[in-house]
């Protein structure tokens, strides 16, 4: 199994380690609910070194990415990041990733851990086949470490070790600065629905930053947080997980990613998506809550009037709302908020209702969710 540079620290902190897509990662340090609530009320520090970083630079990098990404990146400024989909020819979601513009014709793609190898091979293939000889594509995953600092007190904590003024850093923007005099890239973004930062620094120095942040955060209630709470946090915030809620057989229009598709430009998967857009989708991913006892899980079947109509992709007990929540694919006619259906839980059926997303929204919005990020 791959280990991040922080592995020994997790073990020393008493974390339970699991195999997450070939990586030995901490699933929890104390317990999931406690870590979840700590992130919502104070701050949490996450080891995200397993995620992928692929740099795309050189002459033609912009044109190349316009060709592979569903999102129009024209107009993106240096210091700005954007969420996008890497689509297959059929319009399926190969990956959902963030695109950082570091300098003119210099981009960094931050990918899911499990999809990085596939993404990288695909990008190299497209570069060769579609004639982008001057574009340089490099896998930086092994040399870049990544930490997420998330929660309402993140800014107070990080500001102690960063010279730049973080308060003026806007959502989905980043700065190249130093953390403890170590060169680092800091973006205001994350995967929890809270204010927070993603921090990128050299792999061999990330441990120093981890230690110092935990120390700086003591008075603010900062705790290390495992992947268990990362999953419940992202689900409460209505964020999807690739490989769980979507994959290459699912298109952006079937999930909530229609807004990252721009049919006005030419890109791989565009024609298939344009066709689907004009015809309309047949199924849709929706959020649901349950009022009966029980928890729906990935793979559970959805029924309407006794007929199987869909499938649950994510489900958990929401620590903030204290009820069962989840995501499911249902026929588009059952996707409106308020619609009810049944979920088979072992040998019984439990009623569920479609709700608008996200399940949880932080009280003091630093930014607004559905603006163009």
């Amino acid at each position, binding site marked *: 199994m791959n280990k991040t540079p922080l592995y020994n620290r997790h073990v020393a902190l008493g974390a339970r380690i699991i195999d997450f897509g070939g990586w030995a990662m901490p*699933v*929890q340090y104390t*317990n*999931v*609910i406690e870590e*979840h609530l700590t992130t919502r009320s104070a701050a949490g520090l996450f080891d995200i070194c397993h995620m992928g970083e692929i740099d795309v630079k050189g002459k033609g990098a912009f044109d190349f990415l316009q060709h592979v990404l569903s999102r129009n990146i024209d107009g993106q400024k240096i210091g700005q990041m954007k969420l996008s989909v890497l689509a297959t020819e059929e319009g399926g979601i190969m990956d959902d990733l963030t695109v950082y513009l570091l300098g003119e014709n210099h981009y960094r793609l931050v990918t899911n851990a499990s999809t990085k190898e596939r993404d990288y091979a695909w990008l190299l293939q497209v570069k060769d086949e579609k004639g982008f000889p001057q574009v340089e594509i490099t896998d930086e995953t092994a040399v870049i470490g990544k930490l997420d600092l998330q929660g309402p007190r993140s800014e107070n904590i990080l500001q102690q070790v960063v010279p730049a003024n973080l308060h003026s850093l806007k959502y989905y923007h980043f700065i190249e600065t130093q953390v403890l005099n170590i060169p680092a890239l800091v973006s205001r973004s994350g995967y929890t629905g809270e204010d927070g930062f993603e921090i990128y620094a050299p792999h061999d120095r990330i441990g120093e930053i981890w230690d110092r942040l935990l120390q700086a955060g003591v008075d603010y209630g900062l705790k290390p947080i495992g992947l*268990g709470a990362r*999953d*419940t946090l992202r689900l409460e915030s209505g964020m999807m997980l690739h490989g769980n809620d979507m994959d290459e057989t699912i298109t952006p229009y079937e999930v909530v990613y229609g807004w990252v598709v721009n049919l006005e430009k030419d890109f791989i998967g565009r024609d298939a998506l344009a066709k689907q857009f004009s015809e309309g989708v047949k199924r849709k991913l929706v959020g649901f809550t349950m009022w009966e*006892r*029980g*928890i729906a*899980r990935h793979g559970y079947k959805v029924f309407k009037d006794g007929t199987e109509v869909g499938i649950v992709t994510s489900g*958990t*007990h929401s*620590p903030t709302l204290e009820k069962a929540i989840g995501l499911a694919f249902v026929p588009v006619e059952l996707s409106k908020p308020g619609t009810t259906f049944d979920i088979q839980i*072992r040998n019984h059926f439990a009623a569920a209702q479609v709700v608008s997303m996200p399940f949880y929204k932080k009280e003091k919005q630093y930014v607004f969710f559905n603006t163009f990020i």
Partner: protein
Amino acid sequence: MSKVNPTDRRYTKEHEWVIDNGDGTVTIGITDHAQELLTDIVFVELPEIGKQVKQLEAVAVVESVKSVSDVYSPVTGEVSEANQKLEKSPELINHDPYGKGWIAKLKMAQPEELQSLLDASAYEAFIAAEEH
């Protein structure tokens, strides 16, 4: 940081415990080790009264935030009572797995089955071996 496993009962390799109530019934639950592995129990699906189960057949379900686990009956028998307090307070299993966190009572069909189960020290040896 496991608590001491009481010596007044027997254990399965699936991490359940069973105690003989002396009146033909047994009380069952999951072990401290099991609750520690599961953590944060947020839901318990209790068996219906009168349900017939064979030894090591699923009798209840416990769910944590992350996972779903079957609870296997340590003995063959009929469910005579279920711990209704777990409906509102599933965390009792985390806090007191050998006491208030009991799951069900069964009328034993084959009391000799108890002899085939592990005693506390054998169970502890089993956990130790499983972890290495």
